[in-house]
Structure formats: structure tokens, C-alpha cells
């Protein structure tokens, strides 16, 4: 009925020459693994997924933005090492630094064949303010508002989007609030028991503001 991601990967590679796709496995019991597609061919891949007779993924149900910080992954690697003169495999843990990136995930369904989610992901190369990604709104109109929301809350600029503006926050807002490293303004003017993280946030984000209830001696402590 619905073919597995591997089959779809081969079919896409045959249909869209030069498309670089790899499969992102999903550890949870839901077995919804996804296809990571490269930015350059994203539009043609999406067009193929929608118009291919067998797939007919004409319903883009959900577009999600994601923010992956820089991660350090420790991996157990079998390394051949010369130990006291002869070859031996030795287990060694390697620290591998993965630079952070922003990601847009599309869940695609087919209304004609009524088969389930094919998930495609697109990643930006860095976490800069307006990291570019190709917009898939010309192919699935349902991505119009959701891509605007990702632009508003994560800062991914979608090229080719008909009307890319902030959708949820007010237009003069500068930050991208859903990113992991976003510090929201701490207007806890009235905080009966200012415990540690509220205190840290007050000191670190803004200069200690004149707290209306005279609590500035609290926040101004060294």
C-alpha cells in the first residue's frame, strides 16, 4: 500500500537527477522515519512527490520548525591501535561536534490513495538570523501560513514565499522567540520569592530595572 522510505528514496533519485536524499531513522515505536532532502532540489522533489501517480501526496498536513543547538555526540568507536607492538581493537569514545542548524519538517499525506505520513526534512546550514530555505508554498498552499509562522518564531527565510511577514508576533519584534537560546524579557515585576533562575534572568538580560516594589536591592546583589 504505502511503500517504505527506502523505496521512495530510490524513486525520487530516479525521477529527480542529482537529488541528495538520506533517511533519518526514528527510534520511537511509531516507526515514522523521514527523508532529509537537500535544499537545491527541494522544489523539484516536492513537485514529484505531489504529481507522481503512485504517491499523489497532495495534502501537506503539517509544517514544523525546529532548532537544533550545537551538540557534542559521544560515540563508541572500534579503533585499531598498536598496543605494545601488536594490533588490537580497542574501544574508544570519540567526541564528535555537530554544528547546530534550523530545520523544517513537512508531513505529507495523500487524499486520493489515503496513505499515511511521508515526512521530508530540510536543514539550513547554520543557525544565522535569516537562514534561507526554499519555500514549498507554490506546491502545497497549506504551507503558506505555517511557513510564515516558522519565519516568525524561528527565523528561517523561505525564498519564493508569496507573502513572508511575521504572523504571530507584532511586526516591530526583533527576536526569534521559539529558538532554544531565546531569553524572554523578565517582566516578573512582582515575584514573591525570586528564586534562582528568575534572579539570574533578571540580572543577565537587562540592567537591573527599578523594580516597582523596591526589589531592586534584590536583583542588584553581586
Amino acid at each position, binding site marked *: 500500500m504505502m511503500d517504505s522510505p527506502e523505496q521512495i528514496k530510490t524513486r525520487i533519485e530516479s525521477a529527480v537527477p542529482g537529488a541528495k536524499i538520506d533517511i533519518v531513522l526514528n527510534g520511537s515505536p511509531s516507526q515514522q522515519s523521514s527523508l532529509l532532502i537537500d535544499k537545491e532540489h527541494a522544489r523539484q522533489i516536492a513537485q514529484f512527490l505531489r504529481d507522481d501517480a503512485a504517491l499523489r501526496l497532495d495534502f501537506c498536513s503539517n509544517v514544523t520548525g525546529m532548532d537544533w543547538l550545537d551538540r557534542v555526540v559521544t560515540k563508541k568507536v572500534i579503533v585499531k591501535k598498536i598496543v605494545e607492538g601488536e594490533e588490537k581493537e580497542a574501544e574508544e569514545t570519540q567526541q564528535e561536534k555537530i554544528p547546530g542548524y534550523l530545520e523544517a519538517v513537512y508531513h505529507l499525506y495523500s487524499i486520493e490513495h489515503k496513505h499515511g505520513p511521508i515526512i521530508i526534512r530540510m536543514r539550513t546550514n547554520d543557525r544565522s538570523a535569516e537562514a534561507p530555505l526554499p519555500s514549498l508554498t507554490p506546491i502545497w498552499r497549506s504551507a503558506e501560513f505555517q511557513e510564515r509562522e516558522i519565519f516568525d518564531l524561528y527565523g528561517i527565510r523561505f525564498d519564493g514565499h508569496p507573502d513572508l511577514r511575521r504572523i504571530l*508576533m*507584532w511586526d516591530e519584534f*526583533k527576536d526569534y*522567540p521559539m529558538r532554544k537560546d531565546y531569553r524572554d524579557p523578565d517582566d516578573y*515585576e512582582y515575584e514573591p520569592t525570586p528564586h534562582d533562575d528568575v534572579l539570574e534572568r533578571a540580572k543577565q538580560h537587562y540592567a537591573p*530595572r527599578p523594580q*516597582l516594589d523596591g*526589589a531592586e536591592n534584590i536583583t542588584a546583589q553581586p
Partner: protein
Amino acid sequence: MSDIDEELRSELQRQGIWVTSMQELYNWGRKNSIWPLQFGLACCAIEMIATAASRYDIARFGGEIFRPSPRQADLMIVAGTVTKKMAPQIVRLYNQMPDPKYVISMGACAISGGPFKQGYNVLKGIDRYIPVDVYIPGCPPRPEALLHAFMELQRKIDEQKLTGAGKAAHLDRTHPSEFPVPAFGAHDLEPAANADVFRPMKIERT
């Protein structure tokens, strides 16, 4: 609480003479015909509509005419989460209401941000920008709680004075009937709170 002593009044009433004062008549008229502004924000608005519906009838208190325009409303029920994007609009609506005007802050979100207090776009309570008369806790408060708040407001209106030092806010010239509308800033609303309206509780920090 009125300045006519009660025994005299009941004695006269037994004789068939009814005594009242200008202030009582004025407050009686105002209290029993409060027109709320039709202005729901979130889930509390649905409980407000349920209160106005047939089962928890708010018409028994004279408040069932919900006026869409602030020009004809006396009471603003802030029902729901006040977000920072909505705050300037609420203050502008409050300013455009004619005196005498009252505010009921319905639900935990309107009082102090409620369950969404850690939200970056949520204002931690509407009393940062406009003076609030009655607070109702609850998430959402039951329709009976809203009716109780309505009765509380009517009791408060009943005690308003027409003349003298402690006269009602809308009658004394010095009391402002308009509050500055906050502007949208780069990170937050500017100013973050209206200093002369927002008086958080004083805490003796030992």
C-alpha cells in the same frame, strides 16, 4: 451605609412615606443597568457567554445587553489571556469608553498571566495598564463566580459618593479617565507597566 438613619426610614415606611437620597437613587440606577462591552479574549469569554445564556442568566442583574461598541458600554469584562500584542488595543478600548466605567478582570490569565505566565507574548495581568475594580480567580471561573463578581461590582457602585472628598472617580476632576497606550518595542512593550496604575504588593524583605 447611606447617611439616612435606618430606624427613621423604617418608621416612616410604616406610615407609608418612602425616603431616599439623590445619591441612593443615582447609584440604584447605575448599578442595575450595567452594560458590558462585548469583548471576549479566550476561554473565559465562553464562560461569559454561558453566563449570558439562558441557564445562568445575567439578565437578572440587568447586565445582559452586551454592547459591541465601547462608546455605549459601562463595564469592560477582560475575559481571557491578555497578550502583549493585544494590550495596546485593550487600553485604547478602555480609553474610548465613556465615564463612569468599570473593569472586571475575569480569570487567572487577566489577573496575573495565569497558566501562561511563562509565555513571552503574555502580559502578566491587565492591571499593569488599566485600573481594575473586581478580580475573579479561576481558570475559567464558573458562571456563578462571574455573577458573584457582578454583585460585588454592584455593591461597589452602591457605595460611591456623589460629593465630598471620597467621591466617585468619574466625578472628581483630578482622576484621569485615560491611560497612556503602550507602544510595541523591539523586545517588549514600552513601557512594560504603567507605574501610576500598577502597584504590586509591598513585601518586607528581611
